[in-house]
């Protein structure tokens, strides 16, 4: 056709079986013509359509993707579309930050009675995509954008008495048999104290920034039996999530809460959990900083760039990824026995350290951490390639807080962000 200049866009539509698929059927029965570029993939419900599928569509060269299902209240399965909508809100924010061309990603509710709407939506998406031209998000020229450094908090003074108190507590816990192992900080990284005589190996100083909760998932640690763990207020949030996800039995865990005046990390600048809230015993005390900077200033900095620049920036970042999975290994929330990245039937995420697979991995990882990441920033610190992974986690944490008043691990009573929904979830992006 002349107006396309020979460009035939590839449009992938993931649709639910009961509304949009039938809407497309009705468009057929009503002989409502629309451009032929769309390829429909039928799924039972929008609840089944996850971020990986959308990313996959762009990987195989889609110029635009449509996700469409039943209107709110009409879901054949009661609530699949509500669950989907919440995930899409988060997913869109993530893609926005990464710099995907959001004009290529479409969401709609099309009922079985809306053959006309199906025709309109497909026609408009096709025309729009033709106007935009071919798309290859993975073809961006990588470019390192200088980001102004994150606000660093000065390391607060550590109470020397606290270290002594900690050792005494650890000794008591081990001697009384309350725990078989104390997980704490040592002079050169984590220590796992099993004998009361060794408690002097425990330290409490300005280098204790790591979140030790990650060791609770390790088989070799679990094999030691009941554990006591040294936790800061920020680390403790991870325990709340892990308990919620049935990964730890909180009554079996003895938590020694250390008050912390900041460890000089970016996360410390806006920290409002300087003391543990649910620890079994608390040592020392701390005050939140007087003036609290915006927690999400790094995201604003990214979003201040043009989408193409953001894409160039993240392409440069992800291009350095070695797929060493240090980020996964160190994350307290990554405890799956078999990671989706290691699942090869089908291969949702390309394992070789190439651009597409790197994008797919980091998007999937961020989505898995939505509403779960407690912002310990271990992934960023562990990354040997220095990828600023924090930006992705912060993006979703920001969305969670701003749109759903949800902060991971803050309120143990709150239902998880993903897996629940509200009828009031915003849907201005869905047509």
């Amino acid at each position, binding site marked *: 056709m002349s107006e396309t200049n020979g460009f035939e866009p590839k449009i992938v539509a993931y649709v639910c079986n009961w509304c949009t698929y039938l809407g497309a*059927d009705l468009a057929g029965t009503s002989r409502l*013509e629309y451009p*032929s570029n769309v390829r429909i993939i039928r799924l039972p419900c929008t*609840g089944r359509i996850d971020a990986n599928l959308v990313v*996959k569509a762009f990987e195989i060269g889609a110029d635009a993707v449509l996700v469409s299902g039943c209107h709110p209240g009409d879901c054949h399965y009661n609530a699949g579309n509500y669950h989907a909508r919440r995930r899409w809100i988060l997913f869109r924010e993530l893609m926005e930050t990464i710099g995907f061309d959001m004009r290529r990603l479409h969401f709609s509710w099309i009922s079985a009675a809306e053959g006309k709407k199906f025709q309109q939506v497909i026609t408009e998406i096709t025309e729009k995509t033709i106007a935009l031209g071919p798309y290859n998000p993975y073809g961006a020229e990588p470019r390192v954008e200088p980001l102004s450094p994150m606000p660093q908090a000065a390391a607060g003074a550590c109470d020397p008495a606290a270290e002594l108190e900690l050792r005494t507590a650890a000794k008591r816990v081990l001697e009384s048999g309350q725990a078989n192992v104390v997980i704490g900080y040592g002079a050169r990284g984590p220590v796992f104290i099993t004998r009361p005589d060794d408690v002097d190996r425990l330290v409490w100083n300005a280098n204790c920034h790591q979140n030790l909760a990650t060791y609770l998932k390790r088989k070799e640690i679990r094999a030691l039996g009941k554990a006591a763990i040294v936790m800061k207020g920020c680390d403790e949030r991870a325990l709340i999530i892990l308990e919620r996800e049935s990964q730890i039995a909180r009554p079996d865990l003895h938590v020694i809460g250390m008050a912390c005046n900041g460890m000089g990390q970016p996360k410390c600048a806006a920290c409002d959990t300087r003391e543990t809230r649910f620890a079994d015993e608390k040592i020392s005390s701390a005050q939140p900083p007087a003036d609290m900077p915006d927690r999400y200033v790094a995201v604003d900095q990214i979003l201040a760039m043009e989408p193409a620049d953001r894409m160039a920036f993240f392409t440069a970042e992800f291009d350095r990824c070695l797929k060493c999975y240090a980020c996964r290994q160190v994350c307290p929330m990554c405890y799956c026995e078999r990671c*989706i990245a290691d699942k090869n*039937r089908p291969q949702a995420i390309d394992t070789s350290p190439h651009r597409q697979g790197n994008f797919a991995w980091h998007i999937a990882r961020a989505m898995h951490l939505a509403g779960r990441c407690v912002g310990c920033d271990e992934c960023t610190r562990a990354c040997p390639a220095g990828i600023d992974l924090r930006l992705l986690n912060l993006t979703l944490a920001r969305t969670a807080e701003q749109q759903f008043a949800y902060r991971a691990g803050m309120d143990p009573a709150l239902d998880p962000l993903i897996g629940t929904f509200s009828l009031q979830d915003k849907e201005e992006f869905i047509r």
Partner: protein
Amino acid sequence: MSRIGVFVCWCGENIARTVDIAKVVESVAEIPGVRCAMNYKYMCADPGQAMIREKIASEKLDGVVVASCSPHMHMKTFRRAAAAAGLNPYRLEMANIREHCSWVHADKEEATRKASDIIRLAVAKVGYDHALNPIKVPVTRRAMVIGGGVAGIQAALDVAEAGYEVVLVEREPSIGGKMAGLSETFPTLDCSQCILTPRMVEAGQHPRIKLYTYSEVESVEGFIGNFEVTVRKKARYVDIDKCTGCGECSKVCPLKKNLSEFDYGMGMRPAIYMPFPQAVPARPVIDKTQCAKIIRNGCGLCEKKCAPGAINFKDEDQLVKEKVGAIVVATGYKLYSIGKKQESEKITGYGEYGYGKYKDVIDSLQFERIVSASGPTNGEIKRPSDGKTPEKVVFIACVGSRDNAKGLNYCSKICCMYTAKHTMLYKHKVHHGEASVFYMDIRSGGKNYDEFVRRAIEKDGAKYYRGRVSKITEENGKLIVRGADTLAGVPVTIEADMVVLAAAMRPADGIEELAQKLNVGYDENGFLMESHPKLRPVETNTAGVFVCGACQAPKDIPEAVAQASAAASKVMVTFAANELTREPEIAVINEQTCAACYACVRTCPYHAIEKVELRARNGTLIKYAARVNQGLCMGCGTCVSVCPSKSADIEGFTEEEIYSMVEALA
């Protein structure tokens, strides 16, 4: 290498007109794994199906793609054909090249290209299709009906008559529900008790109906065919097996001035009472909040008087478990509380009508008792305040209904009819009296319904004013009703002796808690949600749980009864075989890789996923995991999306199938 057969249908000219069949066949024949590519004018016709069957046999096909119309149209047809030829039906896929292609594209070249692509996707998918077998779930062929009003009684009797046992659970001391308290019913004016009480007796005496009155559902476990319901039998303080129903206890009870629940406060009853003479079971109950013996170990006269020794002051609530295969919910309605006190903040009352303040402003169910031959006034119309016969009665329709300002925006459906009935019943007993009605619209759709309303107006002379009442005040023993006649455009003031308010219908108390126990949805007004408003009107989204009567929406007796029989018939369908057969396209969880985070458990709209412990043969715990209950899963796949390790998957739409389709587009 798979052996896939592709069968391209012309659908007469429907597909062939815009899709170049020959070209399509040629291109799909080259797809790796495709053993043969055929085409025929009408694949769904006998010769077409025969061709598929023949090729499955001769080419030993292990997968089939039929490229024709929508799977919603003919998937079953073709899967049956495949099964007949010995191929597992779930290894057949359809490529929709009619609705999604030939009918919506005019350009032959484009349509042909798209058709080839659509078939390519289906071929990619069919290569990963698992052979599936229908899931069999054992069925306990025994039903529970919750609520013993007219709908519940009807449902219970229907199911029992079909030969199945029924457990009927009623919250009140007697079955009968609201209808037992009605006077006469529209549009025939036949006596409510004359119709209902024989049915109550029948239900009470039926050999296959087990009656739990004064009992409530405590908890529900299990799933279709296999529910276990715990019923709380509230302490009645009367052994209903020993009791003969003689009524001596009520006669000797000194505490006779308690407002009768059955008469909606229009009459009195003792502390030990039978709610009404025709109660089923005809056994009394002691109100523990009133009985002097229970409160302060006083009195005890009834115990002394009771010859069979049926009184037991030490009675306690009992929990009993019942195994049933299906549940019918028929919990009915209550009236909107007109006064200030409301059940939720968004609903407000009508302070301006003085209900609760003026004794002679009553609601419609109270009027039913006053006008009922078995009521506290023996059917003589006497107003509550002084027992005088009211000369002028004002009836106000839509009190609460269709009133956004009060928080209820729905129509209660039956008020127009019963208000017309009320005017008639009143006029038939007080011939010189004047009945006036304030209404918004008259909604009298139904067999002989509009004729009935016309009769009230034209024959019995009820005065109908289209308009609302703004305020009711009391002056010198008269109720001053200030309203408007909007048709005449004039204000109307009536000095009435009594006012009857047609209050909105609300679902019965505790409906939301019950719905949560049953995992059934309810709307913003608390009415239970049917699975589909038109095609599945008595099913709910929990398989095996059905609804009927006013708990689903406001409705009148004929409708409630019809719906009850519909629900009963659905129960019978469930019980038709020893095993239920369910579609196998549901979720499966790989327990080996499951990390037991239970995101799926929290997300599943059907509560179909359970936490399980995997144990070695010697009993040591290996790990925790999630497992799909095949009786509950509906196959939406929401669990797959939230599963971080993708240990969950949906048969028929597996990850491998979906990704193979997307990748076929590369």
